[in-house]
């Protein structure tokens, strides 16, 4: 792969961008030539039928997997070869479609681990964890914001799934991301509880650019200011919710199937 010289940066440059991003799993092209742009403060949704490659794309953005070809740029800087841990430090954080939490630990400890990594407290060996007041304070504060403070002392495994989903969000927010990748944040949550998750997402500070993957069209159209539709591993359409909602092709491949009821 040859990399063309860097384009000059300017104020309207996208925050996160991919250029002809590809990823193959054997003969399967899970991502094909994805050109994608996301701007500071964006509320961007990624939709598409099952198997469209949405989670693969999030994995490529977060650095969990390497692309077969193509580039990922953050603020115009090439981060294609940057490892996941480093991307977190650069401000890209994600949640998982299925909760990935420290189930045996308390809610506070879960958030503590994320905040401790970001503040550089984690390598410290000779000081008790609870005495890092800065880490504890910030973790508790974050739990307050997400109305999780009452559960702070409970083990994650004891909480109902909807609350666990909020902890997943809290752990990720503990990394103070600039780009937040939400992989089906309300997946598996009973509909009676999903409004709590939606409220938490709606209340996210505006300086965080949010990319949300979801099947719930109500959520997507309420939340997103821009929608990208993926089909078969590549970008099928991109535009405002109004444009996407009116696009007959999108309706044919996707919305028609999703709006079953």
């Amino acid at each position, binding site marked *: 792969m040859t990399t063309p010289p860097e384009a000059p940066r300017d104020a309207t440059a996208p925050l996160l961008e991919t250029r002809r991003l590809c990823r193959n799993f054997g003969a399967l092209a899970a991502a094909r030539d994805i050109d994608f742009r996301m701007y500071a403060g964006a509320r961007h949704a990624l939709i598409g039928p099952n198997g469209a490659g949405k989670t693969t794309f999030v994995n490529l953005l*977060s650095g*969990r997997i390497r692309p077969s070809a193509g580039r990922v740029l953050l603020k115009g800087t090439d981060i294609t070869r940057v490892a*996941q*841990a*480093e*991307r*977190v*430090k650069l401000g890209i*954080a*994600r949640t*998982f479609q299925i909760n*990935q*939490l*420290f*189930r*045996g*630990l*308390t*809610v*506070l*400890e879960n958030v*503590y*681990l*994320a905040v*401790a*990594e*970001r503040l550089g*407290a*984690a*390598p*410290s*060996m*000779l*000081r*008790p*964890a*609870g*005495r*890092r*007041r800065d*880490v*504890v*304070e*910030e973790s*508790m*504060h*974050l739990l*307050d914001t997400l109305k999780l*403070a009452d559960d*702070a*002392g409970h*083990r994650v495994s*004891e909480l109902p799934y909807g609350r666990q989903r909020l902890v997943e969000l809290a*752990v*990720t927010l*503990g*990394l*103070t991301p600039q780009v937040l990748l939400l992989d089906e944040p309300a997946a598996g949550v009973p509909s009676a509880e999903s409004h709590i998750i939606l409220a938490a997402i709606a209340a996210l*500070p505006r*300086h965080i650019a949010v990319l949300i993957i979801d099947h719930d069209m109500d959520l997507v159209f309420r939340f997103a200011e821009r929608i990208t539709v993926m089909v078969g591993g590549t970008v099928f359409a991109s535009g405002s919710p109004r444009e996407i909602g009116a696009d007959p092709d999108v309706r044919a491949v996707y919305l028609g199937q999703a709006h079953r009821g």
Partner: protein
Amino acid sequence: MTPAPPSGVLNRPAALVLAGRHRIRLWETVPWTLAIALYVAFPKYLAFGTELLITILFALSLDLVLGYAGIVTLGHAAFFGAGAYTVGILAKQGLWSEPITGLLLAAAMAAAVGLGSGLVLLRTRGLTLLMLTLCTMALLEEAANLAHVYTGGFDGLDSVPITPLFGRFEFNPLYPTTQYLYVLAVLFACFAFVRTLVYSPFGQSLTGIRENLLRMRAVGAPVRTRLVLCYTLSAAIAGIAGGIWAQANAYVNLGTLGLDRAATVLIILALGGHGRLYGAFIGAAAYMSLSHFLSKVYPTGWQLGLGLLLVVIALFANNGILGVVETLAHTLRRRRTGTPASPPGLR
């Protein structure tokens, strides 16, 4: 996104629990009191006691990697043996026979082995890792067997000369009062270190790696670096255990590097309860007392009794003896207060 947080969040119950978790509880003085009581009351059992304390130290080093970081290993005796042979060879060759600095050298050598093997092994997990740790140990054992000019091969090294502690206290193999107190002091120092470590943010992050590797990577933790560091520190402590074993017994043999030792320490930790610091103490005491007692009562079939006990533990108490105690204490507390108390999960 965080303006100066309001003071007071640190006084919330969960924050207080976290802040007070590392505090020393009264019952934590019990093992040390018992150890001193043994010295005073049962001078005939000091050889047994010395062996027990060394086993606790070795099991403690395993707890750090297995119980906290979740690294499954069947080759931890590699580091015990590396420490033992370091002390043995240096003393036998007339190069170094002072005990305390000898232990530091043993720790350094074992740490070097841990670092070198850890950098390679810890790229893998699960069964692969288990097999590779076993192979590393087998390679070391075979190397020790082949290098018989230095190691004495199969016969090992006996009558290893160790200079008196502080130039005054002789190591007498028949009446091991010096050894006992020396080992107790070393165990205490190592325990204090491990205890500090597991309650630190570093220890917390090891627990995080054990609980969910994927999430730990996603919060930006350099997972492999942490694991290698933990493995190296644990190897150093295992090396100290091996080194002190060689000093206390004045000999070294291939058994220090063998699968028997590695498997026994694993059993001890499973018996006592892993990831709990004191599981090493309880497990070693239970295992060694039981094998001591059973081998007297049934000299031929005593291992059957141990095997049955292990089956029971594996079936009904997979958190070991301490796990059972914690569950009982939790149930009692709940019954007494009548409210569902918070679980004993903070370890």
